């Protein structure tokens, strides 16, 4: 680009002057700690003693048989169903039901559907703890009101139900985002594609499969990356609603890192889990981005 060339008399490093202050703060307070976490994952360290013991890959190898870690990882994967797959399916359903005709008043709906995205997850957690309250929460009271009193439960206190209950909160947070994203994407698809398909006698399902889905590839990529990352990063919500309980039934890797680092002083172990979490997020994001740019024009 023309303007990116040096101006007459300008130093080769002029751009660095602008870069320096922001980059410095980033490197010291974000990037260096990431490297330090990676390094600590090869040590055994309680955080207090002067000496860290180098244990090579021992922390990583022991993760493979660590029931606590495997449980947390499995729960993160279950959360992908609630945070990512269900909201994306709901979003696609709504987008195909509404079609591409602009609706008067859509701004209002968009604003409302997007609302959970901007709220603090602590506020969301407090709200849903009230909804799940066994005695006077919205859910159980509602079930009793429509004659389904037999289905009332202590949602967050039940070993089987706590995980899907917290997961359902994730669905509540994410589905509006997916709907808004896909509806916006639908507006871009040229009308003549559908007209041609209708002339060829393609029914609505085939139109969805052959026109809508391929055209929404970019939006699908965005939805997958953001919601899967959200599912793998869950921390605030679990901290507020269940603290990983009852037992370890809602333990997630984010909470495991916090608990082992700041409550049990196992810094090497916590750093290892954090590193695995990071690599998992980077890996999945790269796969989705690669997938997206391979069978399309790219993002």
């Amino acid at each position, binding site marked *: 680009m023309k303007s990116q060339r040096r101006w007459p008399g300008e130093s080769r490093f002029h751009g660095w002057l602008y870069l320096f202050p922001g980059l410095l703060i980033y490197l010291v307070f974000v990037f260096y700690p990431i490297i330090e976490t990676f390094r600590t994952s090869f040590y055994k360290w309680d955080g207090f003693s002067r000496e860290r013991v180098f244990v090579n890959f021992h922390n990583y190898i022991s993760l493979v048989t660590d029931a606590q870690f495997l449980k947390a990882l499995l729960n993160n994967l279950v959360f992908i169903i609630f945070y990512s797959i269900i909201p994306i399916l709901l979003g696609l359903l709504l987008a195909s039901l509404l079609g591409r005709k602009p609706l008067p008043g859509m701004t209002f709906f968009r604003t409302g559907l997007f609302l959970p995205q901007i709220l603090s997850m602590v506020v969301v957690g407090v709200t849903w703890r009230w909804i799940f309250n066994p005695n006077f929460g919205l859910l159980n009271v509602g079930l009793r009101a429509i004659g389904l009193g037999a289905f009332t439960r202590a949602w967050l206190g039940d070993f089987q139900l706590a995980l899907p209950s917290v997961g359902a909160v994730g669905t509540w947070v994410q589905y509006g985002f997916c709907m808004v994203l896909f509806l916006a994407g639908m507006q871009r698809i040229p009308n003549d594609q559908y007209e041609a398909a209708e002339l060829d006698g393609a029914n609505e399902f085939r139109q969805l499969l052959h026109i809508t889905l391929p055209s929404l590839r970019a939006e699908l990529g965005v939805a997958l990356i953001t919601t899967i990352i959200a599912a793998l990063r869950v921390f605030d919500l679990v901290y507020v609603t269940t603290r990983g309980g009852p037992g370890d039934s809602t333990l997630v890797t984010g909470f495991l890192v916090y608990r082992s680092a700041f409550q049990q002083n196992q810094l090497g172990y916590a*750093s290892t889990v954090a590193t695995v979490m990071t690599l998992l997020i980077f890996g999945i994001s790269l796969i989705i981005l690669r997938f997206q740019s391979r069978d399309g024009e790219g993002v």
Partner: protein
Amino acid sequence: MKRQAWQRLLPNYLILSAFLLLILLPIIGLVFSAFKTDIEVIKGPLTLPSQLRFASFKEAWTTGRFNFFFRNSVIVTVVVVVISVFLSTLTGYAFGMLPVPGKKVLYPLLLVGYMVPFEAVVIPLYHMMDNLKLTDTYWALILPQIGLSVSFGTLWMSSFFSTAPSELVDAAAIDGCNRWQTLWRILWPLARPAVLTLVVLIFMWTWNEFLLALVMIQKETMRTLPVGLAFFQGRYSANIPLMAAGALIVAGPILLVYIVFQRYFIRGMLGGAVKG
């Protein structure tokens, strides 16, 4: 004809309203609860409060120390937003318009900060702040969040600057503007929508940040709103009106900003994600 069109759209509105109601009901219930008495809460989750009772807000504000939490959140958020947006403008300008040797290495370096889960940063960061005697201070919250915001802000602003019209920049150069003047006199006014989006996104992320504040702050009066609310919940979880009032104090400012700037929020979050 008009009537027909309306009838055709009716199912669409019904479907949308159902999904919207599912999102709004919990929030409406929360708002109602904040004005109720304990007894009214037990009577029914969605019944209207008998009167506009502000007692729970007052109790949360003074006894619950939300006055301190609110002050802390405002200070941290304002400082982080102002400094991050300023620094991101400079770094984004450098990346988008200036010759920067080593750009190919620096760009992915910043991308890492945007995608990394904060769990991978917070452990060494805690020991660093502890060594610097900065835990329980605003610095422990402000500096790392500026770093994080700059990583996203750089990507965001550089994508604006790299698409800004280069004829304007060339014209400015001919008129004798230097790089600094070109940025603030010529480009900054054009950057308004991009900057506003960045402001609301960083505001939201900083206002809602939880893990960092949880780890860095031990002193009760130094807590930010989300952490204050989480501890509040541990202590008063049976007192629904008080919890609801506390939650609304935390959500209030962000809701207000969202209602005014919702276009920027949505554009940023739909578009910001693409940038990642």
